[in-house]
């Protein structure tokens, strides 16, 4: 094991896969010498050269769309969209092309493409550079959605995403990039579709992912002092979703809180609540609760932005309200 930040772990995951498979390449805006807007691809150009680490014009539709064609023709592109907020410029390429090609062609094509993109608020970047919109991607049959919450998962899920034969949305959180942690060296794969119990507990289950996982871990510490034992289930991948792990935990605790940074309305928390409400109805001794961002765009002023983001305090309050 080695200490790495989340950003270094993503990079290490890409590097190992690029060493392993010459068909893996990187394309995106400023990903080459510049190393990407957040430095995540720094050094890869020097290591792999201009053939495998390519800058693109500001052309999101062509970035994702070319990836679809390259993948269908046998390569394994990792394309970067600089902010997930820009996916609106290339949704057709993702949801009508990449996602459906295999099905429409009767199983005779595959599109092993990873779309890497950062999400999330917390840096005063305002309404068009701070969003979380993962539930959109989970609504697209044919696409897998990955949201690592720790450095180790970031590396292991990157490997799994690159090796997967389907289009994968790999969504990293800006606020996590600098977070350090223990990361296995060399080849390391975390399978898609397997949740991870990030903390064991007995009184309540919290399902959360990405940055909110870190906030929830901190909140759980506080709650432990108050005598509430929290179990934290991190699905890590939203599609495929490890339903069984969630149901198993709820069957033990009898309570479920879902915490996410997406705005609440039609966020992925609704899907989880609906599944557990139907399949885990008898386990529940309290209503399932969702704690999420309010249904507003993301404001610029720090005081407003922090009111927007679900906080440790709000998580604690939400949990206490369920006892």
């Amino acid at each position, binding site marked *: 094991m080695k200490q790495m930040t989340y950003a270094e772990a993503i990079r290490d995951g890409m590097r190992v896969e690029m060493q392993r498979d010459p068909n893996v390449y990187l394309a995106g805006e400023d990903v080459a010498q510049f190393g990407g807007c957040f430095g995540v691809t720094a050094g890869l150009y020097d290591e792999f050269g201009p053939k495998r680490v390519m800058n693109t014009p500001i052309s999101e*539709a*062509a970035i994702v*769309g*070319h990836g679809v*064609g390259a993948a*269908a023709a046998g390569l394994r592109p990792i394309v970067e969209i600089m902010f997930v907020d820009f996916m609106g410029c290339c949704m057709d390429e993702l949801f009508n092309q990449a996602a459906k090609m295999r099905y429409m062609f009767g199983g005779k094509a595959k599109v092993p493409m990873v779309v890497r993109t950062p999400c999330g608020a917390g840096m005063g970047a305002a309404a068009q550079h701070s969003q979380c919109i993962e539930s959109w991607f989970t609504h697209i049959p044919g696409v897998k959605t990955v949201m690592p919450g720790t450095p180790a998962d970031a590396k292991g899920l990157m490997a799994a995403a690159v090796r997967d034969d389907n289009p994968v949305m790999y969504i990293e959180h800006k606020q996590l990039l600098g977070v350090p942690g223990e990361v296995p060296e060399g080849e390391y794969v975390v399978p898609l579709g397997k949740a991870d119990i990030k903390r064991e507990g007995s009184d309540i289950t919290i399902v959360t992912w990405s940055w909110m996982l870190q906030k929830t871990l901190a909140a759980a510490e506080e709650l432990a002092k108050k005598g509430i034992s929290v179990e934290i289930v991190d699905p890590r991948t939203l599609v495929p979703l490890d339903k069984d792990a969630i149901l198993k935990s709820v069957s033990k605790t009898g309570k479920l809180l879902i915490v996410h940074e997406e705005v609440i309305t039609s966020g992925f928390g609704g899907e989880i609540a609906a599944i557990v409400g139907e399949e885990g109805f008898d386990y529940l001794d309290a209503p399932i609760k969702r704690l999420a961002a309010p249904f507003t765009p993301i404001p610029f002023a720090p005081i407003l932005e922090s009111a927007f983001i679900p906080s440790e305090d709000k998580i604690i309050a939400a949990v206490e309200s369920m006892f």
Partner: protein
Amino acid sequence: MDLNKEQLLDMYKKMATIRAFESKAVELFAAGQIPGFVHLYLGEEAVASGVCACLSDKDYITSTHRGHGHLIAKGGNIKMMMAELFGRSTGYCRGKGGSMHIADVDLGILGANGIVGAGMPIATGAGFACKYKDTDAVSIAFFGDGASDRATFHESLNMASIWKLPVVFICENNGWAISNSQETHQNITDISDRASSYGFPGVSVDGNDVVAVYEATQAAVARARQGDGPTLVECKTWRWRGHFEGDPGAYKDPKDQADWLTKDPIPRLEKNLIKLKYATQAELDAIKAGVEAEIAEAIKFAEESPVPDPKELFTDVYAD
């Protein structure tokens, strides 16, 4: 003209096959045997045939909603195509795609597409793969005059240019985007002029002259294979039918329609073949008869094929 007898006759057969296939599709749709939308290629046969005569199986194409002609010209299996139009399990897509999504990845056919302009970035990526793998294969994007106004046209041509990709952009200017004539949806005459925005050559040819289409494409493909980057080839032609079957095309000026019908690319090639003594009318009629028979067989195959098992609804959503 560097085309020999065999090549010209092969193009002729392709054009005749497309003509026969589409003519039957008209009847079959009217008879309610083909569900969904059907966009026909009648009158535009010379474009796909002239372009694909420059390609081999290792070269890629992306097609459009009006894709039957591209599929046939690139060597697609007519039985599997017809079965797909019928929605049968023996179809190219096991009945899951239909007319707008027929593909044959093994032949480098990356699919018809229901989204106008969506093929261009995909062809750009396939061209990227050809170059990345150090092959001399090329990638062709077919698209229409209407598609040349879309986002993807601009972004794809620019990307293909700066990456010097082996991609040839074939614009099928058939004068119409549904009910909009070219002059109503863009303020230019030659779409090939748009290539100058990306710093590579553009050329316009008579899309009803299969030899002209072949020669322009051949030059562009040679350029691409040599690593000199993309070319935009505009083929000026005419959509004989309405936009899709069911659209009478009432917005067309009957005079224009009549004029263009006289420019039918097939008799035009026949005259040429006879003049060159490559074939007699009788031989050409024999080819047409043979093609008719093939299509009839394909229809029989489709009709006799089973519909998909309902369980197929759930298969191939993901590769595992």
